[in-house]
Protein backbone atom coordinates (compact mmCIF):
# COMPACT_ATOMS: atom_id res chain seq x y z
CA UNK A 1 0.00 0.00 0.00
CA UNK A 2 1.76 3.12 -1.17
CA UNK A 3 1.93 6.28 0.90
CA UNK A 4 0.55 8.38 -1.95
CA UNK A 5 -2.49 6.18 -2.30
CA UNK A 6 -3.04 6.20 1.43
CA UNK A 7 -3.58 9.94 1.59
CA UNK A 8 -5.85 10.31 -1.38
CA UNK A 9 -9.05 9.96 0.57
CA UNK A 10 -10.00 9.84 4.22
CA UNK A 11 -9.89 6.11 4.46
CA UNK A 12 -10.03 4.69 1.00
CA UNK A 13 -6.69 2.96 1.33
CA UNK A 14 -7.93 0.90 4.25
CA UNK A 15 -10.86 -0.48 2.38
CA UNK A 16 -9.05 -1.66 -0.68
CA UNK A 17 -9.05 -5.37 -0.07
CA UNK A 18 -11.29 -7.71 1.80
CA UNK A 19 -9.70 -10.61 3.58
CA UNK A 20 -10.63 -13.94 2.02
CA UNK A 21 -10.71 -15.56 5.46
CA UNK A 22 -12.59 -13.10 7.62
CA UNK A 23 -15.67 -10.98 7.26
CA UNK A 24 -15.58 -7.33 8.34
CA UNK A 25 -17.17 -6.77 11.75
CA UNK A 26 -18.76 -3.46 10.83
CA UNK A 27 -20.74 -3.21 7.64
CA UNK A 28 -20.57 -0.29 5.23
CA UNK A 29 -17.33 1.57 4.67
CA UNK A 30 -17.41 3.49 7.91
CA UNK A 31 -14.69 5.99 8.78
CA UNK A 32 -13.80 7.10 12.32
CA UNK A 33 -15.88 10.21 11.74
CA UNK A 34 -18.87 8.16 10.60
CA UNK A 35 -18.83 6.16 13.83
CA UNK A 36 -18.83 9.34 15.92
CA UNK A 37 -21.68 10.80 13.87
CA UNK A 38 -23.77 7.62 13.82
CA UNK A 39 -23.61 7.00 17.56
CA UNK A 40 -23.71 10.60 18.77
CA UNK A 41 -26.66 11.50 16.56
CA UNK A 42 -28.64 8.79 18.35
CA UNK A 43 -28.04 10.71 21.56
CA UNK A 44 -28.82 14.12 20.05
CA UNK A 45 -32.07 12.99 18.46
CA UNK A 46 -35.38 13.49 20.26
CA UNK A 47 -36.89 10.16 21.35
CA UNK A 48 -39.49 8.82 18.95
CA UNK A 49 -43.05 7.71 19.64
CA UNK A 50 -42.00 4.09 19.90
CA UNK A 51 -39.45 4.86 22.61
CA UNK A 52 -42.04 6.80 24.61
CA UNK A 53 -44.59 4.01 24.25
CA UNK A 54 -42.05 1.44 25.45
CA UNK A 55 -40.87 3.69 28.26
CA UNK A 56 -44.33 4.50 29.58
CA UNK A 57 -45.36 0.84 29.45
CA UNK A 58 -42.22 -0.28 31.33
CA UNK A 59 -42.55 2.51 33.86
CA UNK A 60 -46.20 1.63 34.53
CA UNK A 61 -45.33 -2.03 35.09
CA UNK A 62 -42.45 -0.99 37.34
CA UNK A 63 -44.74 1.26 39.39
CA UNK A 64 -47.23 -1.58 39.79
CA UNK A 65 -44.34 -3.69 41.06
CA UNK A 66 -43.32 -0.91 43.43
CA UNK A 67 -46.84 -0.82 44.86
CA UNK A 68 -46.86 -4.59 45.35
CA UNK A 69 -43.43 -4.37 47.01
CA UNK A 70 -44.62 -1.62 49.33
CA UNK A 71 -47.64 -3.75 50.23
CA UNK A 72 -45.35 -6.69 51.00
CA UNK A 73 -42.97 -4.63 53.11
CA UNK A 74 -45.71 -2.90 55.11
CA UNK A 75 -47.86 -6.00 55.60
CA UNK A 76 -45.40 -8.87 55.70
CA UNK A 77 -44.31 -11.96 53.82
CA UNK A 78 -47.78 -13.45 54.48
CA UNK A 79 -48.86 -11.62 51.34
CA UNK A 80 -46.93 -14.23 49.38
CA UNK A 81 -47.84 -17.84 48.67
CA UNK A 82 -44.97 -19.26 50.74
CA UNK A 83 -45.70 -21.76 53.50
CA UNK A 84 -43.72 -23.70 56.10
CA UNK A 85 -42.65 -26.31 53.56
CA UNK A 86 -41.98 -24.11 50.56
CA UNK A 87 -40.07 -21.24 52.13
CA UNK A 88 -38.37 -20.14 48.94
CA UNK A 89 -40.20 -19.81 45.64
CA UNK A 90 -40.87 -16.87 43.33
CA UNK A 91 -38.57 -14.47 45.15
CA UNK A 92 -35.45 -16.64 44.99
CA UNK A 93 -36.35 -17.85 41.49
CA UNK A 94 -36.38 -14.24 40.33
CA UNK A 95 -33.19 -13.49 42.23
CA UNK A 96 -31.26 -16.35 40.61
CA UNK A 97 -32.81 -15.57 37.22
CA UNK A 98 -31.71 -11.93 37.23
CA UNK A 99 -28.22 -12.65 38.56
CA UNK A 100 -27.89 -15.19 35.76
CA UNK A 101 -28.95 -12.65 33.13
CA UNK A 102 -26.16 -10.40 34.29
CA UNK A 103 -23.49 -12.99 33.58
CA UNK A 104 -23.54 -12.56 29.80
CA UNK A 105 -22.53 -8.92 30.08
CA UNK A 106 -19.43 -9.75 32.07
CA UNK A 107 -18.73 -12.72 29.83
CA UNK A 108 -18.77 -10.45 26.78
CA UNK A 109 -16.85 -7.59 28.35
CA UNK A 110 -14.21 -9.55 30.27
CA UNK A 111 -13.83 -13.13 29.08
CA UNK A 112 -14.17 -12.36 25.37
CA UNK A 113 -11.76 -9.44 25.89
CA UNK A 114 -9.14 -11.79 27.32
CA UNK A 115 -9.72 -14.16 24.40
CA UNK A 116 -9.27 -11.21 22.00
CA UNK A 117 -12.68 -11.71 20.37
CA UNK A 118 -13.00 -8.48 18.45
CA UNK A 119 -16.70 -8.87 17.68
CA UNK A 120 -17.48 -8.11 21.32
CA UNK A 121 -16.91 -4.37 20.68
CA UNK A 122 -20.33 -3.84 19.09
CA UNK A 123 -22.30 -5.38 21.92
CA UNK A 124 -20.22 -5.00 25.06
CA UNK A 125 -21.52 -1.58 26.10
CA UNK A 126 -25.19 -2.54 26.11
CA UNK A 127 -24.49 -6.02 27.48
CA UNK A 128 -22.63 -4.49 30.43
CA UNK A 129 -25.46 -2.03 31.01
CA UNK A 130 -27.79 -5.04 31.00
CA UNK A 131 -25.58 -6.69 33.63
CA UNK A 132 -25.75 -3.71 35.98
CA UNK A 133 -29.49 -3.36 35.63
CA UNK A 134 -30.07 -7.10 36.04
CA UNK A 135 -28.00 -7.15 39.25
CA UNK A 136 -30.10 -4.26 40.58
CA UNK A 137 -33.28 -6.21 39.80
CA UNK A 138 -31.80 -9.29 41.47
CA UNK A 139 -30.76 -7.41 44.60
CA UNK A 140 -34.32 -6.38 45.39
CA UNK A 141 -35.56 -9.94 45.95
CA UNK A 142 -33.42 -11.23 48.83
CA UNK A 143 -33.85 -7.88 50.58
CA UNK A 144 -37.65 -7.83 50.45
CA UNK A 145 -37.68 -11.53 51.29
CA UNK A 146 -36.03 -10.70 54.61
CA UNK A 147 -39.38 -9.54 55.92
CA UNK A 148 -37.77 -6.61 57.71
CA UNK A 149 -35.80 -5.15 54.81
CA UNK A 150 -34.94 -2.01 56.77
CA UNK A 151 -32.51 -4.16 58.77
CA UNK A 152 -30.72 -5.48 55.69
CA UNK A 153 -27.50 -3.76 56.77
CA UNK A 154 -27.20 -6.38 59.51
CA UNK A 155 -25.43 -8.57 56.95
CA UNK A 156 -22.49 -6.15 57.11
CA UNK A 157 -19.76 -7.12 59.58
CA UNK A 158 -19.66 -3.77 61.36
CA UNK A 159 -18.86 -3.18 65.07
CA UNK A 160 -22.21 -2.88 66.83
CA UNK A 161 -23.77 -2.50 70.27
CA UNK A 162 -24.99 -6.08 70.35
CA UNK A 163 -21.72 -7.45 71.50
CA UNK A 164 -20.25 -6.90 68.86
CA UNK A 165 -22.26 -9.74 67.45
CA UNK A 166 -20.56 -10.58 64.19
CA UNK A 167 -22.15 -12.07 61.10
CA UNK A 168 -21.92 -15.79 60.43
CA UNK A 169 -19.12 -16.11 57.89
CA UNK A 170 -19.92 -19.81 57.49
CA UNK A 171 -23.24 -19.09 55.79
CA UNK A 172 -23.50 -19.11 51.98
CA UNK A 173 -26.21 -16.45 52.29
CA UNK A 174 -23.57 -14.11 53.65
CA UNK A 175 -21.14 -15.12 50.89
CA UNK A 176 -23.90 -14.12 48.49
CA UNK A 177 -23.96 -10.64 49.93
CA UNK A 178 -20.19 -10.25 49.47
CA UNK A 179 -20.21 -11.85 46.02
CA UNK A 180 -23.07 -9.79 44.65
CA UNK A 181 -21.96 -6.47 46.04
CA UNK A 182 -18.42 -7.03 44.74
CA UNK A 183 -19.85 -8.08 41.40
CA UNK A 184 -22.01 -4.99 41.20
CA UNK A 185 -19.20 -2.60 42.18
CA UNK A 186 -16.61 -4.11 39.81
CA UNK A 187 -19.10 -4.30 36.93
CA UNK A 188 -20.13 -0.70 37.52
CA UNK A 189 -16.58 0.68 37.49
CA UNK A 190 -15.65 -1.49 34.51
CA UNK A 191 -18.63 -0.18 32.57
CA UNK A 192 -17.99 3.43 33.54
CA UNK A 193 -14.31 3.17 32.70
CA UNK A 194 -15.23 1.94 29.23
CA UNK A 195 -17.64 4.87 28.87
CA UNK A 196 -15.18 7.66 29.72
CA UNK A 197 -13.50 8.08 26.28
CA UNK A 198 -16.91 7.94 24.59
CA UNK A 199 -18.37 10.49 26.97
CA UNK A 200 -15.48 12.77 26.00
CA UNK A 201 -16.40 12.29 22.34
CA UNK A 202 -19.99 13.19 23.18
CA UNK A 203 -18.81 16.19 25.21
CA UNK A 204 -16.77 17.55 22.29
CA UNK A 205 -19.60 17.13 19.86
CA UNK A 206 -22.98 17.58 21.52
CA UNK A 207 -23.83 21.24 22.09
CA UNK A 208 -27.22 21.03 23.83
CA UNK A 209 -26.75 22.66 27.22
CA UNK A 210 -27.71 19.95 29.69
CA UNK A 211 -26.17 17.09 27.80
CA UNK A 212 -22.93 18.97 27.28
CA UNK A 213 -22.73 19.75 31.00
CA UNK A 214 -23.49 16.13 31.92
CA UNK A 215 -20.88 14.70 29.58
CA UNK A 216 -18.33 17.31 30.60
CA UNK A 217 -18.59 16.25 34.22
CA UNK A 218 -18.79 12.54 33.50
CA UNK A 219 -15.91 12.41 31.01
CA UNK A 220 -13.46 13.34 33.81
CA UNK A 221 -11.44 15.74 31.65
CA UNK A 222 -10.48 12.99 29.21
CA UNK A 223 -8.36 14.38 26.37
CA UNK A 224 -7.10 11.25 24.67
CA UNK A 225 -3.57 11.61 26.03
CA UNK A 226 -1.47 8.54 25.33
CA UNK A 227 -0.18 8.53 28.89
CA UNK A 228 -3.77 8.21 30.08
CA UNK A 229 -4.63 5.66 27.41
CA UNK A 230 -1.63 3.58 28.38
CA UNK A 231 -2.58 3.30 32.04
CA UNK A 232 -6.25 3.01 31.08
CA UNK A 233 -5.53 -0.02 28.93
CA UNK A 234 -3.58 -1.62 31.77
CA UNK A 235 -6.44 -1.03 34.21
CA UNK A 236 -8.93 -2.37 31.67
CA UNK A 237 -6.91 -5.55 31.33
CA UNK A 238 -6.60 -5.91 35.11
CA UNK A 239 -10.33 -5.45 35.56
CA UNK A 240 -11.05 -7.99 32.81
CA UNK A 241 -8.70 -10.45 34.49
CA UNK A 242 -10.41 -9.85 37.84
CA UNK A 243 -13.94 -9.92 36.47
CA UNK A 244 -13.38 -13.31 34.84
CA UNK A 245 -12.96 -15.36 38.04
CA UNK A 246 -15.39 -13.00 39.76
CA UNK A 247 -18.26 -13.79 37.41
CA UNK A 248 -17.59 -17.51 37.78
CA UNK A 249 -17.51 -17.12 41.56
CA UNK A 250 -20.79 -15.20 41.74
CA UNK A 251 -23.02 -17.89 40.34
CA UNK A 252 -20.98 -20.60 42.06
CA UNK A 253 -21.72 -18.89 45.35
CA UNK A 254 -25.39 -18.49 44.43
CA UNK A 255 -25.43 -22.25 43.78
CA UNK A 256 -23.85 -22.83 47.23
CA UNK A 257 -27.06 -21.40 48.73
CA UNK A 258 -28.58 -24.66 47.55
CA UNK A 259 -25.65 -27.07 47.33
CA UNK A 260 -24.47 -26.67 50.93
CA UNK A 261 -27.89 -27.60 52.30
CA UNK A 262 -29.00 -31.20 52.82
CA UNK A 263 -32.15 -31.02 50.70
CA UNK A 264 -32.30 -33.81 48.07
CA UNK A 265 -32.16 -32.15 44.66
CA UNK A 266 -29.98 -29.35 46.03
CA UNK A 267 -27.16 -31.19 47.76
CA UNK A 268 -25.05 -31.74 44.68
CA UNK A 269 -21.47 -31.04 43.66
CA UNK A 270 -22.31 -30.27 40.03
CA UNK A 271 -24.25 -27.18 41.03
CA UNK A 272 -21.50 -24.53 40.59
CA UNK A 273 -20.55 -25.34 36.95
CA UNK A 274 -24.18 -26.15 36.16
CA UNK A 275 -25.32 -22.76 37.46
CA UNK A 276 -22.54 -20.83 35.74
CA UNK A 277 -23.27 -22.46 32.37
CA UNK A 278 -26.98 -21.80 32.84
CA UNK A 279 -26.29 -18.18 33.73
CA UNK A 280 -24.21 -17.54 30.62
CA UNK A 281 -26.84 -19.40 28.59
CA UNK A 282 -29.75 -17.28 29.78
CA UNK A 283 -27.68 -14.10 29.73
CA UNK A 284 -26.73 -14.55 26.09
CA UNK A 285 -30.34 -15.27 25.21
CA UNK A 286 -31.32 -11.98 26.86
CA UNK A 287 -28.52 -10.10 25.07
CA UNK A 288 -29.76 -11.47 21.75
CA UNK A 289 -33.37 -10.47 22.48
CA UNK A 290 -32.26 -6.95 23.41
CA UNK A 291 -29.77 -6.56 20.55
CA UNK A 292 -32.32 -7.61 17.94
CA UNK A 293 -34.65 -4.90 19.23
CA UNK A 294 -31.91 -2.28 19.60
CA UNK A 295 -30.40 -2.76 16.13
CA UNK A 296 -33.84 -2.48 14.55
CA UNK A 297 -35.22 0.41 16.60
CA UNK A 298 -32.01 2.46 16.65
CA UNK A 299 -31.03 1.53 13.08
CA UNK A 300 -27.71 0.02 14.13
CA UNK A 301 -27.79 -2.77 11.55
CA UNK A 302 -24.33 -1.83 10.28
CA UNK A 303 -22.83 -2.19 13.76
CA UNK A 304 -24.71 -5.16 15.19
CA UNK A 305 -24.66 -7.50 12.24
CA UNK A 306 -26.07 -11.01 11.73
CA UNK A 307 -22.47 -12.14 12.30
CA UNK A 308 -22.60 -10.87 15.89
CA UNK A 309 -25.90 -12.63 16.46
CA UNK A 310 -24.54 -15.81 14.92
CA UNK A 311 -21.56 -15.81 17.27
CA UNK A 312 -23.87 -15.36 20.24
CA UNK A 313 -26.04 -18.22 18.97
CA UNK A 314 -22.95 -20.43 19.06
CA UNK A 315 -22.23 -19.51 22.67
CA UNK A 316 -25.87 -20.23 23.48
CA UNK A 317 -25.65 -23.60 21.78
CA UNK A 318 -22.53 -24.52 23.73
CA UNK A 319 -23.81 -23.42 27.14
CA UNK A 320 -27.25 -24.85 26.42
CA UNK A 321 -25.64 -28.20 25.71
CA UNK A 322 -23.67 -28.00 28.97
CA UNK A 323 -26.95 -27.36 30.77
CA UNK A 324 -28.48 -30.39 29.02
CA UNK A 325 -25.57 -32.57 30.14
CA UNK A 326 -26.09 -31.25 33.66
CA UNK A 327 -29.77 -32.28 33.56
CA UNK A 328 -28.82 -35.77 32.43
CA UNK A 329 -26.05 -36.05 35.02
CA UNK A 330 -28.38 -34.89 37.76
CA UNK A 331 -30.94 -37.56 36.83
CA UNK A 332 -28.29 -40.26 36.46
CA UNK A 333 -26.59 -39.48 39.76
CA UNK A 334 -30.00 -39.34 41.44
CA UNK A 335 -30.54 -42.99 40.60
CA UNK A 336 -26.89 -44.05 40.82
CA UNK A 337 -26.72 -42.74 44.40
CA UNK A 338 -29.11 -45.48 45.49
CA UNK A 339 -30.53 -42.93 47.91
CA UNK A 340 -34.36 -43.24 47.91
CA UNK A 341 -34.81 -39.56 48.70
CA UNK A 342 -32.64 -38.50 45.75
CA UNK A 343 -34.45 -40.93 43.45
CA UNK A 344 -37.81 -39.64 44.63
CA UNK A 345 -36.87 -36.03 43.81
CA UNK A 346 -35.92 -36.97 40.24
CA UNK A 347 -39.14 -38.94 39.69
CA UNK A 348 -41.23 -36.27 41.37
CA UNK A 349 -39.76 -33.55 39.14
CA UNK A 350 -40.53 -35.43 35.94
CA UNK A 351 -43.88 -36.94 36.94
CA UNK A 352 -45.08 -35.11 40.03
CA UNK A 353 -47.48 -32.17 40.32
CA UNK A 354 -44.91 -29.73 38.90
CA UNK A 355 -44.01 -31.91 35.92
CA UNK A 356 -45.41 -29.25 33.57
CA UNK A 357 -42.74 -26.83 34.81
CA UNK A 358 -40.05 -29.50 34.49
CA UNK A 359 -40.96 -30.35 30.90
CA UNK A 360 -41.21 -26.65 29.97
CA UNK A 361 -37.68 -26.32 31.28
CA UNK A 362 -36.41 -29.37 29.39
CA UNK A 363 -38.07 -28.28 26.13
CA UNK A 364 -36.83 -24.70 26.28
CA UNK A 365 -33.32 -25.35 27.57
CA UNK A 366 -32.33 -28.71 26.16
CA UNK A 367 -34.22 -28.88 22.86
CA UNK A 368 -34.65 -25.26 21.72
CA UNK A 369 -30.93 -24.32 21.59
CA UNK A 370 -30.22 -27.40 19.45
CA UNK A 371 -31.79 -25.51 16.53
CA UNK A 372 -28.64 -23.40 16.54
CA UNK A 373 -26.71 -26.29 15.01
CA UNK A 374 -28.30 -25.14 11.75
CA UNK A 375 -26.91 -22.09 10.02
CA UNK A 376 -30.41 -21.23 8.82
CA UNK A 377 -31.56 -20.82 12.42
CA UNK A 378 -28.43 -18.91 13.45
CA UNK A 379 -28.84 -16.39 10.63
CA UNK A 380 -32.61 -15.90 10.67
CA UNK A 381 -33.30 -12.96 12.94
CA UNK A 382 -37.01 -13.66 13.63
CA UNK A 383 -36.01 -17.23 14.50
CA UNK A 384 -33.26 -16.09 16.89
CA UNK A 385 -35.68 -13.65 18.50
CA UNK A 386 -38.28 -16.33 19.22
CA UNK A 387 -35.75 -18.95 20.36
CA UNK A 388 -33.95 -16.51 22.66
CA UNK A 389 -37.21 -15.62 24.41
CA UNK A 390 -38.09 -19.32 24.78
CA UNK A 391 -34.66 -19.94 26.34
CA UNK A 392 -35.29 -17.27 28.95
CA UNK A 393 -38.68 -18.71 29.75
CA UNK A 394 -36.97 -22.08 30.15
CA UNK A 395 -34.23 -20.70 32.36
CA UNK A 396 -36.75 -19.00 34.62
CA UNK A 397 -38.54 -22.35 34.99
CA UNK A 398 -35.24 -24.10 35.68
CA UNK A 399 -34.79 -22.08 38.86
CA UNK A 400 -38.44 -22.54 39.77
CA UNK A 401 -38.12 -26.31 39.33
CA UNK A 402 -34.89 -26.53 41.33
CA UNK A 403 -36.33 -24.52 44.20
CA UNK A 404 -39.97 -25.56 44.44
CA UNK A 405 -39.85 -29.24 43.47
CA UNK A 406 -37.02 -29.90 45.92
CA UNK A 407 -38.86 -28.23 48.77
CA UNK A 408 -42.51 -29.13 48.37
CA UNK A 409 -42.07 -32.85 49.09
CA UNK A 410 -40.44 -32.74 52.51
CA UNK A 411 -38.78 -35.70 54.29
CA UNK A 412 -41.96 -35.92 56.35
CA UNK A 413 -44.99 -36.68 54.13
CA UNK A 414 -47.32 -34.95 56.62
CA UNK A 415 -45.65 -31.63 55.78
CA UNK A 416 -45.93 -32.04 52.03
CA UNK A 417 -47.41 -28.95 50.46
CA UNK A 418 -48.01 -27.17 47.19
CA UNK A 419 -47.02 -23.68 46.26
CA UNK A 420 -49.09 -21.21 44.25
CA UNK A 421 -47.92 -17.62 43.79
CA UNK A 422 -50.20 -14.81 44.91
CA UNK A 423 -51.05 -11.81 42.73
CA UNK A 424 -48.61 -9.74 44.82
CA UNK A 425 -45.73 -12.05 43.92
CA UNK A 426 -46.62 -12.08 40.24
CA UNK A 427 -46.85 -8.29 40.16
CA UNK A 428 -43.48 -7.96 41.92
CA UNK A 429 -41.94 -10.28 39.34
CA UNK A 430 -43.45 -8.32 36.45
CA UNK A 431 -42.35 -5.13 38.19
CA UNK A 432 -38.73 -6.31 38.09
CA UNK A 433 -39.06 -6.66 34.31
CA UNK A 434 -40.59 -3.16 34.27
CA UNK A 435 -37.60 -1.83 36.20
CA UNK A 436 -35.20 -3.63 33.87
CA UNK A 437 -36.70 -2.19 30.70
CA UNK A 438 -37.21 1.29 32.18
CA UNK A 439 -33.55 1.57 33.09
CA UNK A 440 -32.39 -0.02 29.84
CA UNK A 441 -34.46 2.44 27.81
CA UNK A 442 -32.97 5.33 29.79
CA UNK A 443 -29.50 3.94 29.12
CA UNK A 444 -30.26 3.89 25.38
CA UNK A 445 -31.16 7.58 25.51
CA UNK A 446 -28.38 8.92 27.74
CA UNK A 447 -25.24 6.96 26.92
CA UNK A 448 -23.44 5.94 23.73
CA UNK A 449 -25.00 2.55 22.96
CA UNK A 450 -21.97 1.33 21.03
CA UNK A 451 -18.47 1.64 22.38
CA UNK A 452 -17.21 4.15 19.81
CA UNK A 453 -13.55 4.02 20.75
CA UNK A 454 -13.45 0.24 20.58
CA UNK A 455 -15.48 -0.02 17.37
CA UNK A 456 -13.13 2.49 15.71
CA UNK A 457 -10.33 0.10 16.56
CA UNK A 458 -11.95 -2.78 14.62
CA UNK A 459 -13.09 -0.86 11.50
CA UNK A 460 -10.09 -2.18 9.57
CA UNK A 461 -10.73 -5.76 10.65
CA UNK A 462 -10.61 -7.98 7.56
CA UNK A 463 -10.32 -4.95 5.29
CA UNK A 464 -6.56 -4.40 5.06
Amino acid at each position, binding site marked *: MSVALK*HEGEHEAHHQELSPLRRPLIEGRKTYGDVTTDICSLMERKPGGLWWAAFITSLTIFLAGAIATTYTVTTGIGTWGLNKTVGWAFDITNFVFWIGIGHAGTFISAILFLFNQKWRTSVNRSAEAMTLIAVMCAGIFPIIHMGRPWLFYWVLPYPNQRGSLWVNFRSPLLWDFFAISTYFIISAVFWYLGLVPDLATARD*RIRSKWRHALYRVMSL*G*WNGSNRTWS*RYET*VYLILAALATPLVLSVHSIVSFDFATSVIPGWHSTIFPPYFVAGAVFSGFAMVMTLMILVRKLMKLEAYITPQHLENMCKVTLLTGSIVTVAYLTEAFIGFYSGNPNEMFVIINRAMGPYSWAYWTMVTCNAIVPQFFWFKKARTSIPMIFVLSILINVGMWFERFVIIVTSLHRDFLPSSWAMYTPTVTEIVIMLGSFGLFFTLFLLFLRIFPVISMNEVKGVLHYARD
Partner: protein
Amino acid sequence: MLATKETNVRYTAAFFRHEEDLLAAATEARESGFEIFDAYTPIAVHGLDRAVGLKRSHLTWIAFAAGVMGLVLGLGLQVWTSVYDWPLNVGGKPFNSFPLFIPVAFELTVLFSGLIAIGVLVVRNRLWLFAKRRVFERVTDDRFVLVLKQRDASFDVRRAHKLLEKHGAVSVIEGDQFV
Protein backbone atom coordinates in the same frame (compact mmCIF):
# COMPACT_ATOMS: atom_id res chain seq x y z
CA MET B 1 6.64 12.78 35.23
CA LEU B 2 3.16 13.68 34.16
CA ALA B 3 2.73 15.48 30.90
CA THR B 4 -0.22 17.49 32.07
CA LYS B 5 1.61 18.95 35.07
CA GLU B 6 3.81 21.13 32.88
CA THR B 7 1.72 24.15 32.12
CA ASN B 8 4.05 26.32 30.07
CA VAL B 9 5.63 24.46 27.24
CA ARG B 10 6.33 25.65 23.74
CA TYR B 11 5.24 22.84 21.47
CA THR B 12 4.68 21.71 17.92
CA ALA B 13 1.53 19.64 17.35
CA ALA B 14 0.90 17.60 14.22
CA PHE B 15 -2.51 16.23 13.24
CA PHE B 16 -2.71 12.90 11.44
CA ARG B 17 -5.56 10.98 9.88
CA HIS B 18 -4.22 7.50 10.41
CA GLU B 19 -2.72 5.78 13.40
CA GLU B 20 0.02 4.22 11.22
CA ASP B 21 1.19 7.72 10.26
CA LEU B 22 1.27 8.78 13.89
CA LEU B 23 3.30 5.72 14.81
CA ALA B 24 5.78 6.25 11.96
CA ALA B 25 6.13 9.95 12.73
CA ALA B 26 6.61 9.32 16.45
CA THR B 27 9.26 6.68 15.82
CA GLU B 28 11.22 8.83 13.41
CA ALA B 29 10.91 11.99 15.52
CA ARG B 30 12.35 10.18 18.49
CA GLU B 31 15.15 8.67 16.44
CA SER B 32 16.10 12.07 15.09
CA GLY B 33 16.40 13.52 18.58
CA PHE B 34 13.11 15.35 19.11
CA GLU B 35 11.51 15.11 22.51
CA ILE B 36 7.96 13.78 22.39
CA PHE B 37 5.68 15.51 24.88
CA ASP B 38 2.67 13.23 24.40
CA ALA B 39 0.35 11.86 21.76
CA TYR B 40 -3.44 12.28 21.69
CA THR B 41 -5.65 9.72 20.02
CA PRO B 42 -9.35 8.84 19.73
CA ILE B 43 -8.62 5.14 20.22
CA ALA B 44 -6.01 3.13 22.08
CA VAL B 45 -3.18 2.74 19.55
CA HIS B 46 -1.14 -0.41 19.96
CA GLY B 47 2.60 0.10 19.82
CA LEU B 48 2.32 3.82 20.58
CA ASP B 49 3.89 3.46 24.01
CA ARG B 50 7.03 2.07 22.42
CA ALA B 51 6.97 4.63 19.59
CA VAL B 52 6.84 7.59 21.99
CA GLY B 53 9.18 5.92 24.47
CA LEU B 54 6.79 5.45 27.38
CA LYS B 55 7.93 2.99 30.04
CA ARG B 56 5.74 0.13 31.13
CA SER B 57 3.55 0.94 34.09
CA HIS B 58 4.02 -0.79 37.45
CA LEU B 59 0.29 -0.84 37.88
CA THR B 60 -0.05 -4.61 37.55
CA TRP B 61 2.19 -5.04 40.59
CA ILE B 62 0.22 -2.46 42.56
CA ALA B 63 -3.00 -4.29 41.67
CA PHE B 64 -1.40 -7.57 42.76
CA ALA B 65 -0.29 -6.07 46.09
CA ALA B 66 -3.77 -4.60 46.59
CA GLY B 67 -5.26 -8.03 45.98
CA VAL B 68 -2.96 -9.60 48.55
CA MET B 69 -3.99 -6.88 51.00
CA GLY B 70 -7.67 -7.64 50.38
CA LEU B 71 -7.01 -11.35 50.88
CA VAL B 72 -5.15 -10.83 54.16
CA LEU B 73 -7.72 -8.35 55.48
CA GLY B 74 -10.58 -10.63 54.42
CA LEU B 75 -9.12 -13.70 56.09
CA GLY B 76 -8.04 -11.65 59.12
CA LEU B 77 -11.50 -10.21 59.63
CA GLN B 78 -13.16 -13.60 59.41
CA VAL B 79 -10.70 -15.44 61.62
CA TRP B 80 -10.63 -12.68 64.22
CA THR B 81 -14.42 -12.30 64.46
CA SER B 82 -15.24 -16.02 64.27
CA VAL B 83 -12.39 -17.48 66.32
CA TYR B 84 -11.17 -14.80 68.76
CA ASP B 85 -13.60 -11.95 69.32
CA TRP B 86 -16.85 -13.87 69.80
CA PRO B 87 -16.71 -17.54 68.82
CA LEU B 88 -20.22 -18.88 68.26
CA ASN B 89 -21.16 -22.49 67.82
CA VAL B 90 -23.08 -22.62 64.54
CA GLY B 91 -24.36 -26.10 63.72
CA GLY B 92 -21.38 -27.69 65.48
CA LYS B 93 -18.93 -26.38 62.92
CA PRO B 94 -15.43 -25.63 64.19
CA PHE B 95 -14.78 -22.00 65.11
CA ASN B 96 -11.95 -21.88 62.64
CA SER B 97 -13.83 -23.36 59.68
CA PHE B 98 -11.16 -22.12 57.34
CA PRO B 99 -12.43 -23.49 53.98
CA LEU B 100 -15.69 -21.64 54.55
CA PHE B 101 -13.78 -18.36 54.80
CA ILE B 102 -12.40 -18.67 51.28
CA PRO B 103 -15.37 -17.22 49.32
CA VAL B 104 -15.51 -13.93 51.23
CA ALA B 105 -11.70 -13.65 51.20
CA PHE B 106 -11.72 -14.17 47.42
CA GLU B 107 -14.37 -11.50 46.87
CA LEU B 108 -12.43 -9.00 48.97
CA THR B 109 -9.25 -9.81 47.00
CA VAL B 110 -11.01 -8.93 43.76
CA LEU B 111 -12.68 -5.87 45.24
CA PHE B 112 -9.48 -4.37 46.66
CA SER B 113 -7.41 -5.13 43.58
CA GLY B 114 -9.97 -3.66 41.17
CA LEU B 115 -10.80 -0.54 43.14
CA ILE B 116 -7.18 0.31 43.93
CA ALA B 117 -6.16 -0.17 40.28
CA ILE B 118 -8.94 2.24 39.26
CA GLY B 119 -7.94 4.59 42.07
CA VAL B 120 -4.34 4.72 40.80
CA LEU B 121 -5.56 5.54 37.29
CA VAL B 122 -7.85 8.29 38.56
CA VAL B 123 -5.23 9.88 40.81
CA ARG B 124 -2.17 9.53 38.57
CA ASN B 125 -3.92 10.71 35.42
CA ARG B 126 -6.06 13.16 37.39
CA LEU B 127 -9.41 12.11 35.99
CA TRP B 128 -11.54 14.30 38.26
CA LEU B 129 -15.22 14.99 37.83
CA PHE B 130 -14.71 18.68 37.08
CA ALA B 131 -11.30 18.40 35.40
CA LYS B 132 -10.80 20.95 32.65
CA ARG B 133 -8.00 20.55 30.21
CA ARG B 134 -6.89 21.29 26.72
CA VAL B 135 -8.48 19.02 24.15
CA PHE B 136 -7.08 19.19 20.61
CA GLU B 137 -9.63 19.64 17.88
CA ARG B 138 -11.23 16.38 16.68
CA VAL B 139 -8.93 14.27 18.84
CA THR B 140 -11.90 12.51 20.45
CA ASP B 141 -13.35 12.02 16.98
CA ASP B 142 -10.95 11.08 14.18
CA ARG B 143 -7.60 12.88 14.52
CA PHE B 144 -4.32 11.55 15.89
CA VAL B 145 -2.07 14.24 17.36
CA LEU B 146 1.65 14.09 18.05
CA VAL B 147 3.05 16.83 20.28
CA LEU B 148 6.77 17.59 20.22
CA LYS B 149 8.25 19.59 23.06
CA GLN B 150 10.46 22.55 22.17
CA ARG B 151 12.92 22.17 25.00
CA ASP B 152 15.22 25.06 24.07
CA ALA B 153 16.35 27.28 21.20
CA SER B 154 18.10 24.37 19.52
CA PHE B 155 14.68 23.04 18.45
CA ASP B 156 14.62 23.22 14.68
CA VAL B 157 11.04 24.15 13.83
CA ARG B 158 11.54 23.82 10.10
CA ARG B 159 13.09 20.37 10.36
CA ALA B 160 10.25 19.28 12.68
CA HIS B 161 7.59 20.47 10.24
CA LYS B 162 9.32 18.70 7.37
CA LEU B 163 9.52 15.44 9.27
CA LEU B 164 5.89 15.56 10.39
CA GLU B 165 4.56 16.51 6.97
CA LYS B 166 6.60 13.73 5.38
CA HIS B 167 4.49 11.28 7.42
CA GLY B 168 1.25 12.79 6.23
CA ALA B 169 0.39 15.38 8.88
CA VAL B 170 -2.71 17.25 7.70
CA SER B 171 -1.78 20.30 9.75
CA VAL B 172 1.06 21.30 12.06
CA ILE B 173 0.54 24.02 14.65
CA GLU B 174 2.71 25.84 17.17
CA GLY B 175 1.52 26.70 20.64
CA ASP B 176 2.71 27.47 24.13
CA GLN B 177 0.01 26.89 26.64
CA PHE B 178 -1.00 23.63 28.18
CA VAL B 179 -3.78 23.28 30.68
